[in-house]
């Protein structure tokens, strides 16, 4: 008795020690996840990155200044002039509300942080949260060891880091956390059958809907899992509790988000959840009847129900198909369709196909984004199958679906990354389990008893969930005798395997080498993650750096230009630029823009595209009709910044040509190629974009040699007639021009005559005959 009590005490102590160690490890993982994302702040500065985050930052600023109700009703007149945009109803508010409440909390605790600081560090904080959520999810599937490993892997997976470094204040940063949390609560409900967790599940789903359009992934994945469970005969009342409240509460909550609204019941993305909702009720009814009737009666009732059920089902499906078929895209959005049929986008929607994020990835991308996890995932899959539980089957389905989706769109690598981390965590932890056991068992021959006991702790832990699920499932679902017998057999097998675990070892010295190799593999992963984060993913895109023989050069031209706009132009002046820079101009210069990165109105974008691809006079007319005072172009030819406006110009022409047929792509191409040198077409040399980019370029030290295109420009010396240079930044990366005031009538006519001679294409001449209201 004493010995048993002693052993119990020892194991309790060991458990307590393990618990504390686990918490400590989790804390370290959280700190690690946070700090690895600070490279951008250390190497550059605490600044918001790229384009979309600037919009989110601006919305957050508005929220903190004006409060939630004003934010909800905010109509933004600083963008899409003259249309404006109703921000409250067209954004996913999750990120903004999160950062806003964090800021509010800190301020009410008398910690006076600026909104920008809070926004910059939101993503790293939520990455730490995501790592902890991964721990919880994996723990539900395969125990604590796997959970800790998976959390550590997720803390530094490059795919996720690329979207969540400090400063990249975008929806994905919080959405991945919400995604993992929702899955955790789903699996937790599945394992425990608790309505409390089911409610939490619906709430975290609501948070996910608030945060990201990717929530449709959840609302399709979970029904698929439920259906899979039903089809493979794994139905239980826990499954019902996990699913039914999620659909009812989740749908109600989701429709509260303005940007989603009635889409929750009207688009096909959500229909699968309702279909499965109906099915699970039918199955639940069948199981209930099966429980109260004798087997013979049940058979009769079954045949009756099946015949009636089928006729009703057919009628419903017919109505459903008819209603769906009446819409042209069958009720699916283009992006979802291109996921189901990968060739769809490339055939029918060039605007989706043209975005690099929507391209299918190649194998090197997997190596960069999930690195050695790509090797470990298959082992994790097989580990999830032995033994197969409800929770592990969910992880398998999640992995399979996300692996397929990531293969269609690069962007969805982000959804694959958590699944790959969980799977690799499981695989690594199982491998370490086996190999360390092999060393320990054979090393301590004398002390073998206690070592076995120690080793069994993790086994029991990992088997606990599955055992529990099997015992719990027995009671409410009232399975028949056969099933019970089967379960007994399963139990015998598991107990046998646990007894036999004493012998389940591999040769000691080889195991040691394998462990070393596994550690080396993990080390490679850490090295890769840290290196890619530091070099590839931390550049803010608003400040650029380049290393030259003379030393480090910093290009801060964008902020220079925006600051100039803010300080030297009137607050109501309208600034035209290509849509890429819209968010930054409104956020940093606080000036009204014509188009921005929320590309909701193609015609408006095409109008700007038509203006920059027209000759000066026609462009002036278009811009003047939009009340534009300043035109901003980005030019990289002097310093070799490749993604400038000339580089994007072919897209401007294409988009403009889609709406205005007089803009023809062929006019800008010579022999099917795009030239700015001496071979350039006259239309190209006379278009506004060319002129605004290369005006006075010959006077610089480059003397008309474009470093990006590596060629001398075609037309070096020309004057501007309708625009005047207002400001050019230090490295010429941003050039701002002002529209000249309209001339007097007579002067204007004379000017028109002389300038129209330089226009070569017939179309522009035809356009010139149209009267300018100013002349």
């Amino acid at each position, binding site marked *: 008795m004493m010995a048993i009590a002693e052993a119990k005490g020892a194991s309790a102590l060991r458990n307590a020690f393990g618990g504390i160690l686990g918490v400590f490890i989790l804390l370290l993982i959280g700190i690690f996840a946070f700090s690895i994302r600070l490279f951008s702040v250390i190497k550059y500065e605490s600044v918001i990155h790229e384009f979309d985050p600037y919009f989110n930052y601006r919305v957050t600023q508005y929220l903190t200044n004006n409060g939630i109700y004003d934010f909800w009703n905010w109509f933004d007149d600083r963008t899409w002039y003259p249309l404006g945009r109703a921000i409250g109803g067209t954004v996913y508010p999750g990120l903004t509300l999160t950062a806003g409440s964090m800021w509010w909390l800190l301020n009410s605790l008398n910690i006076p942080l600026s909104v920008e600081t809070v926004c910059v560090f939101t993503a790293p904080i939520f990455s730490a949260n995501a790592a902890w959520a991964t721990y919880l999810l994996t723990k539900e599937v395969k125990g604590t060891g796997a959970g800790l490993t998976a959390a550590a892997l997720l803390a530094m997976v490059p795919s996720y880091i690329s979207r969540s470094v400090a400063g990249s204040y975008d929806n994905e940063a919080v959405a991945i956390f919400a995604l993992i949390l929702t899955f955790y609560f789903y699996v937790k409900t599945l394992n425990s059958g608790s309505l409390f967790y089911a409610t939490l599940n619906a709430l975290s789903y609501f948070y996910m809907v608030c945060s990201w359009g990717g929530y449709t992934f959840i609302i399709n994945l979970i029904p698929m899992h439920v259906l899979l469970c039903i*089809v*493979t*005969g794994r139905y239980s009342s826990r499954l019902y509790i996990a699913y039914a409240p999620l659909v009812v509460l989740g749908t109600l909550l989701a429709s509260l988000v303005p940007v989603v609204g009635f889409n929750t019941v009207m688009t096909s993305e959500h229909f699968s959840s309702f279909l499965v909702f109906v099915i699970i009720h039918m199955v639940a009814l069948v199981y209930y009847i099966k429980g109260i009737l004798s087997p013979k009666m049940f058979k009769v009732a*079954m045949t009756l129900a*099946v*015949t009636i059920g*089928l006729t009703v089902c*057919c009628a419903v499906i017919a109505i459903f198909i008819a209603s769906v078929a009446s819409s042209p895209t069958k009720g699916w959005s283009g992006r979802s369709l291109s996921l189901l049929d*990968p*060739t769809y986008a490339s*055939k*029918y929607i060039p605007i989706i196909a043209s975005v690099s994020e929507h*391209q*299918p*990835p*190649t*194998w*090197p*991308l*997997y*190596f*960069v984004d999930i690195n*050695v996890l790509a*090797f*470990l*995932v*298959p*082992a*994790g*899959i*097989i*580990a999830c199958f*032995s033994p197969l539980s409800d929770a592990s089957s969910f992880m*398998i389905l999640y*992995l*399979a679906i996300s*692996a*397929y989706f990531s*293969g*269609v769109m690069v962007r969805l690598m982000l959804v694959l990354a958590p699944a790959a981390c969980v799977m690799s965590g499981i*695989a690594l932890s*199982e*491998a370490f389990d*086996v190999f360390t056991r*092999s060393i320990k068992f054979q090393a301590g021959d004398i002390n073998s008893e206690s070592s076995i006991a120690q080793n069994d702790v993790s086994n029991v832990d990992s088997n606990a969930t599955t055992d529990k699920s099997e015992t719990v499932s027995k009671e409410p679902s009232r399975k028949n005798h056969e099933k019970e017998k089967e379960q007994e057999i399963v139990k015998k097998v598991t107990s046998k395997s646990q007894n036999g675990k004493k*012998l*389940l*070892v*591999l*040769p000691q010295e*080889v*195991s040691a*080498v*394998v462990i070393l*190799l596994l550690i080396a593999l993990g080390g*490679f992963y850490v*090295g890769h993650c*840290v*290196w890619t984060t*530091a070099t590839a993913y931390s550049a803010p895109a608003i400040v650029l750096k380049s290393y030259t023989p003379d030393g480090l050069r910093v290009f801060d031209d964008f902020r220079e230009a925006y600051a100039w706009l803010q300080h030297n132009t009137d607050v109501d002046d309208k600034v035209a630029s290509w849509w890429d820079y819209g968010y930054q101009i409104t956020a940093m210069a606080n000036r009204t823009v014509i188009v921005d990165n929320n590309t909701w109105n193609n015609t408006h974008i095409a109008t700007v595209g038509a203006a920059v691809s027209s000759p000066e006079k026609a462009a002036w007319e278009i811009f003047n009709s939009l009340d534009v005072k300043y035109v901003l172009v980005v030019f990289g030819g002097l310093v070799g910044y490749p993604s400038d406006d000339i580089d994007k110009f072919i897209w401007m022409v294409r988009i403009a040509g889609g709406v205005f047929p007089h803009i023809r792509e062929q006019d800008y191409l010579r022999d099917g190629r795009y030239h700015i040198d001496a071979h350039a077409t006259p239309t190209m040399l006379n278009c506004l974009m060319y002129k605004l980019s290369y005006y006075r370029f010959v006077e610089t030290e480059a003397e008309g040699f474009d470093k990006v295109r590596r060629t001398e420009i075609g037309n070096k010396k020309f004057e501007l007639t309708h625009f005047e240079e207002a400001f050019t930044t230090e490295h010429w990366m941003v050039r701002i021009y002002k529209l000249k005031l309209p001339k007097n009538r007579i002067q204007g006519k004379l000017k028109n005559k002389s300038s129209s001679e330089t226009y070569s294409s017939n179309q522009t001449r035809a356009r010139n005959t149209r009267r300018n209201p100013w002349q």
Partner: protein
Amino acid sequence: MELKIPRVLLLLLLVAVAALISLSSAASPTADDLVAELETLRSQSPSGVIHFDDSSVARFLTSAPLPRPYSLLVFFGASKPDHHLRRLRSEFALVSSSFAAHHASSRRVFFCDLEYQESESSFSLFGVTSLPDIRHVGPQHRSLRDSDRMDQSDFSGLAASMAQFVEAKTSLPVGPIVRPSLISPRQIAFLAVALLISAPFLIKRILEGKTMLHDRRLWMGLTVSVYFLGVAGLMHNIIHKIPMYVKDRKDPNRLIFFVKGFGMQLGAEGFAVGFLYTIVGLIVAFATHVLVRMRNEAVQRGFLLAAMLVVFWAVRKVIYLHNWKTGYTVHTFWPTRWR
């Protein structure tokens, strides 16, 4: 002198041709006859695409009086078409039949096709040098070389962009493209009935739990293969129609399986690396789940050693290939002070 003779000859030829054309047009049937003839030809073809040869090109195009009372859409094909051309030809037929369905009567737009082996001279009349090519010959087109050519980029859009081309050139709407469904309505009805009859049995079997769906190994194999195909970049190859390998331009006997560059890959390349990705995980799983249950220590040791070698080789190979392809190497990131 040397120069003059050809010129005179050319002049003569031109006069002769002009005379011939005027003669033939005088002798040729009236416009209505031609239309009637074309209509009968069209009614003989199931899809409405008329098969042309050199003589019919001469009859309906070169020698017909201007303006012709009809316009023609000509598809240029070959007698042994490759897969792509065959597909385009069937899409062309689809546009033709859709057009026919939309305009039941009085349509003066005819779809026809030409074959290179049969009517080589017509190809040169049109100035067609490469396939695929689709031309629109309007009523006013005097020279066939001036006929409107469909953009190469439009071929990727298949029937939809062909229909756009037709609409743009003839200003007649083609109407919705009627694609014949893969299975006929009768087959659908049959399948539905079969499903209805078999449904109770299927449901019963599912409830009993004795189907293939309950086989764990099936699901395992399925998941691993989905993962394998995903990391192998199969979708990339399908969407961009990437071949498994390409021939070396310098040396046609050599095949290229691997290409440099981050955003591209060949089919075989993807599968090779996908295999390397997958095999490592499978070996680890085998060692942790199957090998531990073996009793023979020598087998365990031997297998583990072999497995380690394979795994080490596979991981190194991927790292090497990735470095070769993109020039990327991993560096440890130490603070500058530590160096």
